[in-house]
């Protein structure tokens, strides 16, 4: 199931943010989108997810044109989404948050057993209100919620934001392991160099709403090249 974004232009209230964005993510890949604050990374993920309707361009997943489809249709087409700042449902329990994630993928298949294997704290705290958990635990819950419906593609928006470094390392390792075990394709947005280098097989650099570089293979380990797009 390949994700293909072609000539994507999107923005808010007539203000253009994304300009002619082209990118491709092949089945099973882990691809990062790197860039400074405010360059359009989150807008790009939202447009791919159907939370922001593009002005022009196309978003295709598995050959299906999802450009004008709503976000819930994207989710049912097997795209999982981990929003920036987690956005767990704070008044719902951990278990209820995971129940919501079952809607992703559009079939009855769920991965509770595997999700609890990766994040055992969630099973221990199944009855706790999500809003009372720490930032790191909420990030785990947001990832688990997106995974429980067994998506083919996972979109992750800044998994390191507001999470303490030790937990960031653990989440990075978990995402890599999830990709390996489930074959889940991952497209993530990030500014944290250690997460990018620990996770991405390939990166797109974005600046002023445009893809300005594609960083592949060993070049991902080139700290200076990545910092060119991250440091203000």
């Amino acid at each position, binding site marked *: 199931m390949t994700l293909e974004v072609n000539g994507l232009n999107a923005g808010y209230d007539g203000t253009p943010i994304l300009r002619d964005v082209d990118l491709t993510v092949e089945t099973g890949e882990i691809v990062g989108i790197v860039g400074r604050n405010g360059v359009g990374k989150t807008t790009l993920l939202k447009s791919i997810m159907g939370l922001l309707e593009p002005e022009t361009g196309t978003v295709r997943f598995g050959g299906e044109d999802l450009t004008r489809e709503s976000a819930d249709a994207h989710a049912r087409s097997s795209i999982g*989404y981990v929003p920036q700042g987690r956005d767990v449902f704070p008044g719902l329990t951990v278990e209820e948050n995971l129940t919501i994630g079952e809607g992703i993928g559009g079939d009855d298949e769920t991965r509770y057993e595997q999700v609890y294997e990766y994040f055992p704290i969630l099973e221990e705290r199944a009855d706790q209100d999500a809003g009372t958990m720490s930032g790191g635990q909420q990030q785990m819950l947001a990832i688990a919620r997106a995974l429980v419906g067994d998506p083919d593609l996972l979109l992750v928006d800044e998994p390191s934001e507001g999470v303490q470094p030790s937990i960031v390392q653990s989440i990075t390792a978990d995402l890599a392991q999830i990709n390996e075990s489930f074959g889940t394709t991952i497209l993530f947005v990030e500014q944290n160099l250690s997460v990018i280098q620990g996770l991405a097989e390939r990166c797109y650099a974005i600046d002023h709403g445009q893809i300005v570089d594609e960083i592949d293979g060993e070049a991902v380990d080139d700290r200076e090249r990545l910092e060119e797009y991250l440091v203000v």
Partner: protein
Amino acid sequence: MITPTATPLSISGYSLLALFFQFLDSFGFIVLATVGLAIIFGMMGVINLAHGEFILIGVYGTALAYHAGAPLPLGMVAGVIAATAFGVVVERTIVRHFYDRLLDSMVATWGLALVVSQLLLIVFGSSLDSISTPLGNVSYGPYSSSVYSSVLLPAIAVCVLAGLYALFTRTTFGIKARATIEDPETARAMGIDTDRMYVATFAIGSALAGLTGALYAPALGSITPNRGNTFLVEAFVAVVVGGQSVILGTLAASGVLSVFNATGSFLFGTFVGQMLLLLVAIVALRVLPDGITGYVDDWQQRRRAEE
């Protein structure tokens, strides 16, 4: 619905029992009048000022079916169906444009209320024949109370709250509805068709309004196009006093308001009871601007922060 034949100020076991029945009567009325409005406000951020007219459609549907020859329970079903269908049409044509626009939604639904009450007046005249209250009265000492209004309706009110609690906490629909209320964008990204959730929630609120109308059709006495206000005032007060939490808010506000309303009504008459209810609402809003459940939520958050 309490008929005293002696001065209520003489405190006796009978007086206390009569006061208790008065409380149950008031509690049942406030809960049933409020619950539909509370669901629509709590879940969708819309204050439906046509709520009284939704209830009235339940009353008219029941009365018209009953007078056409249907047994009362079947007439009540007709009332609920009529209010639910009306609610779905209103949601799709009017209310959907006003989600999370509190003031706009109030103006739009107030206009709707005027239209509905005038239409009922034009189509059915100034009143419909009343329906006699079933189940009769129970007498104790110098008092008597309506079994239907003071026992059956409060019992149904408690069952409705329990049913709603189960619906919103124990079913996938309820969990999805709460997720949609908390964060519609994220809910959509999790595959929830939020548009459909809004229709369903509004339909449930309308059905509950219809149920209230159906249940009170035999207890109202005269059935006139302006009876909607009877329900709306108490429902509005209870929603504001209860706060955003639908079930706990309705339960807490109905309990508190009923104590004052019943005591005032029992001791000094219905007018004083109503005045007392409004006074309590004003004081409660001054002290608890986010309602009872808002205060409880704040208190819990402060406690967690201290820990």
